[in-house]
Each structure stands twice: as structure tokens, then as C-alpha cells.
């Protein structure tokens, strides 16, 4: 994932973000009776962000930062040399996408179906065996549901299990 490690690119990213913030701030019009409107503070932030971004983007050491190599890899996991294996990149993608998939699945499938499936998949890509992954998904879902829904009364979506909500509420 060396392509992610480029300080100059982040500096340019901050310059662009600063310009967007500045442009949007200048469009903000406050009430006439107020001398200092809602755009003053964010426009100052935008200008400072552009200036600081320029310093980062065009300083001499704005290339890739030093790779952080893990000095002591665990026995059950391969040592990392800065560039991860294809499996690791796949696991990274699954972890990165998982919350977005969860958001899409939660209202449709409901918490009690979406959560164990998602956690089991995450455990599988992390290297757990099938039975362990399934058990992790089920046990952690029951734990989460007990803490958040049964004890703390957080209204987690029921989804497909809406009609069984009464049976599944035990506290």
C-alpha cells in the first residue's frame, strides 16, 4: 500500500480542501445586523489550510514517509516488510467496506441477521476457522444485543425479524 504513503499528495489534498472550504465560506451570508457572519471563521480556516498545505506539499522531505515495519511480528502471523500480501489487501478491503455494507444491510436484514454474518466474515478473512468465525459472530451479536438493546434500550433495527420482536425481547 505504498501508494497511500505520499506526503506531497496529502499536502495537495489539504490545499484542495482549504480552497473548497474557502469558496463555500465566501458564499455564506449572515444576517444583516451581524458584523461578523458565519463565513468569517471557516474562511480563515480555509486560508490557513491552503498555506499549511503548500508548506507540506512543497517542502524538501515531502515524499513517502519511512515505512513502519513491525519489529516483532506475532508467531501466528507473517512478518510484514511494508508491502502486504494479496490476502492482507483483501482483508483490508473487507474491513474498510464492512461498515458501509452494514449500513445498507441493517435496515433490511435487521441487527440480529446482519451482525453475525458480518462479524463471521470479518473473522474468516482475519484467519479464523469456520466454526470459530461462526461462533464469534453469534456470541458477539447476542452480547451486543443484550448490552445495547435489552439493557440500554437502544432501538436496533429488527428488519426481517420485526414480527418476532416481542419474543426476542427478553429483558
Amino acid at each position: 500500500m505504498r501508494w497511500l504513503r505520499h506526503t506531497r499528495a496529502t499536502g495537495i489534498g489539504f490545499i484542495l480542501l482549504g480552497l473548497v472550504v474557502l469558496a463555500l465560506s465566501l458564499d455564506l451570508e449572515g444576517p444583516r445586523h451581524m458584523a461578523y457572519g458565519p463565513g468569517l471563521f471557516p474562511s480563515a480556516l480555509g486560508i490557513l489550510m491552503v498555506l499549511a498545505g503548500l508548506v507540506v506539499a512543497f517542502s524538501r522531505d515531502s515524499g513517502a514517509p519511512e515505512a513502519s515495519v513491525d519489529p516483532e511480528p506475532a508467531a501466528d502471523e507473517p512478518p510484514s516488510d511494508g508491502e502486504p500480501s494479496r490476502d492482507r489487501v483483501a482483508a483490508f478491503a473487507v474491513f474498510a467496506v464492512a461498515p458501509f455494507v452494514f449500513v445498507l444491510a441493517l435496515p433490511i436484514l435487521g441487527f440480529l441477521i446482519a451482525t453475525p454474518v458480518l462479524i463471521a466474515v470479518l473473522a474468516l478473512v482475519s484467519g479464523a476457522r469456520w466454526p470459530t468465525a461462526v461462533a464469534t459472530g453469534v456470541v458477539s451479536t447476542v452480547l451486543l444485543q443484550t448490552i445495547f438493546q435489552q439493557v440500554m434500550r437502544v432501538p436496533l433495527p429488527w428488519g426481517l425479524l420485526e414480527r418476532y420482536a416481542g419474543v426476542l425481547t427478553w429483558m
Partner: protein
Amino acid sequence: MDVIVQAAALLADPYVILVMVAASIYGLAVGSVPGLTATMAVALIIPITFFMDPIPALAAVMSLSAMAIFAGDLPGALLRIPGTPASAAYANEAYAMTRKGQAGLALGVGLVCSAIGGIVGAVVLIAAAPWLARIALQFSSYEKFWLACLGLLAAIAVSQRSWIKGFLSLLLGLTIAQIGLDPVSGLMRFTFGFSDLAGGLGFIPVLIGFFAVPELLRYALGRSPTRTVKSQPARRLFSGVGRELVRQRGGIARGSVIGTVIGSIPGAGADIAAYVSYAVARRLSPRRDRFGTGVPDGIASASAANNSSIGGALVPATVFGIPGDSLTAIIIGVLFLKGLNPGPSVFLVNPELITAVFLAFLLANVMIVPFGFAAIAGFQYVLRVPRSVLMPVILGFCMVGAFAVENTVFAILTMAAMGLVAFVLEENDYPLAPAILGLVIGPMLEENLLLSLTRARGNLFAFVERPVSMGLAIVVIGLCLVPLALFLARRLRHSDRRP
């Protein structure tokens, strides 16, 4: 003195003690779970305290607040996922110690310092509440503006490698804080017509995204330092804590004072206290070069400030009904609920009741030590769980925790998006703590800046006309200029030596 004796008698009820023990266990359990905060724990127990008498109800709230705030250090030190925003100030330091096999020392020092800070805060609360509140109440928008600037400087000062990257991270946090309702004009900013953005990005989802998600992504890539955490046998868990506490006595005292004073200023809570205390400790420590690599100096001072700030925040909260932070805002709500309306009159009408509440807070901070040691020893077992099982469960907790706080799936999206941004930033050596502090202080800074400018009608000298604001301005400008002057002096000396 009679009032204190009467208040102590109210607390000596076995039922009150039992409620405090139960609330302490609940506070430790909730506070130690990544994504769950002390504020959330207090908010969720209020429906239960509704059915209790005033003393056990308020004693429960005080106990669980103190315990949950300490417990926020546990995931911060062991998993680098701070349980509370204030823990973020020293989570990296504690985690670096954990990686060196000094988890027990880091947590032991943090625990005892939290207790000492909390006790100092409680004693100050009991002894000098009206006096301290009078000082804090004299702060106008000018003083608050300078105080916010001081907090921002502390944010940049805690940046380890590059101040410019720390500054950019701070600007990012301040920019995120701009989303939603403008605190002064009440107009919408940067919402693009989305109703989910009207209230701004949720603080807890952003916090979880910034501190938990990058760790999980690094784990997925096989580069997570959590794999290298060294577990310690229980009997050696806290070895060296006593010696370290004696060595850090100055820092603990300083942190306790900073926490109490900053906590007593409305709007400036435990977060600012912990960051300022950490930055001061870093500047004054003989081991300042090793900060960030795992030294207990910053942990001792900042964790003392963290807990002492609650005592300080309770001063304006109880005497004048002004909350120092979200936690004390909820505590004020409970006081109202129980008929102890905050204000100077409560000390005249119900002095023994309000003093009993303060004593409960003092007792809770004493109870932190045995309860906290048990919690630390128990939390060590988290490290024995295989990472392939623990990390997916943590992601599950993070997603549900984000959802629970905001009650909308948008909070999960916020968490995920912020997590990806934070991952890229950390890959490029940007510190994340300044962004969080910018997010916390942003509204306070903007509000006080605009109020001051309006009051002064653009006259910038008004910012330094009052004695306290001038004092704070000198400190802020001095903190900006002194490092610059030292840097220039060093460069000049260096160039003189060259032939």
C-alpha cells in the same frame, strides 16, 4: 464541620454504599468498552436513578462518572482506542508503554494518579467551591477565547514529529466542527441540504473513526502493532508503580492543579485539562525527548488532570448551574430531577445534601484504586483473545456504539469515513490528537472570537484590556514566540560556529 458530619452520616447507609459499588462496576464495565463513554454511561443510568432517593441516585452518578472516566484509559493503553476524549491525550504514550511490556506500569500509574487527581478535585470542590466559581465566572468571552487558543497550542505541542502536520490535523478538526448549525448566527453551514448533517458530525462516531478504525485497518493489513502487545504475569503487573509515583510527585501535583482550575472554567472540561497537562508535562520533563515512545511522565500528569477536572467542573455546575462539559450537564439534570436545584441557594437550603454529593465524589475517587486494580487485572485477559476473533468483535462494538449514541445509521457512515481519512493521515505521519481537540474546542473558539469581536466592534486591543485576558494573551503569545526565538537562536549559534 457539622454539615460535613451530617453529610457523612447520610452516605454511611449500607444501601447507598451498595448502590455505589454496583454503579462503580457498571461504570468500569461501560468505560472500558471501546466506543462507550462516561457521558453515555451516566445518560443511560438516569432512568434507573429516577426511582431512587436523592443521595443514592447522586452517589451512583458520581461513582460511575469517576470509574468510567478512569476505565477509558484501559482500552486506550491496551488497544490504543481511548474510551473517553480526555484519554486520547495520553493514549499513545500509554500504548507505547504497553508495546514495551509495561502495560501494568502505565495503567497502575494512571490509576493512582487518577485517584489522587480526583481526590484533590473533590477536596477543592468541598473547601473552595464558591471562591473558585467566583473566579471562573469573571471570565468573559475574551478570556475564554485565549483559553481556547491555549488549548489549541497544546494540541500542536503534543504533535510528535512535525508541527506543520499537527497544525493541519488541527485545522481538519476545526473544519469538521464547522459542519452544521453556526453557534452564533444559527445558520446552516456545509450541510449541502442533508438533514443528517444539520447537527454536525457526531463527536463519538468521529472519535471512534479516528482512533479505532485505523487500528483495525492496520491489523487487516498485517501491520498492526497490537499484535506485539506483551502480556505480563499478574504478580508483576504493577511492579515499579510506587517508585514511579514518588518520582512523578511534582507532575501529579501540577496535573491536579491544572485539572481543577481548567475544569472549573465553564466550557473547558477534562479534554482540555488532559491535553494542557500533557503538553506542560512534556515541556517540563527531563525526559521530554522520549515523550511518545512510552514514558510515564505524561500519563501521570494528564490522568491526574483528567479526574481532578471533574471536581473543578462540579464547582460552577453546583454553585451556579453552569456545566463545564457534557458530563456535568447531565449531572445538573440529575440534581434538578432530585430537587437539588443548582445555585447558591442550594448551599443554604440543603447544605448537608449537596455536601453529601461532594463526599460521594470523594469516596468514589478513593474506591477507584481497589476497583481499578481489579479492572486492570481483568482487562489483561483481552490480550489473550486471538486477534482474528477480537478485531471483528471490536469493529462490531464500534459500529453499534456509534449507532447507539446518535440513533442513526449515518453515525456508522461518519465513523467509517473518518476512519479511512484517519488511516491515510496516519500512514503519512499526521498526528490525530490535534484533530480531535480542534473538533472539541472549535465551537468554543469561534463563538468566543465572534462574540468578542462584536463586543469590541472590531477593536483588537479589547482582547487584552482586561487583566486576566492580558495574562492569558501573554502566555499564549509567549508559548508561540519562545520556541520560535529558541529555534532562531539555535540557528544563529550554529551558523556562527561554521568557519
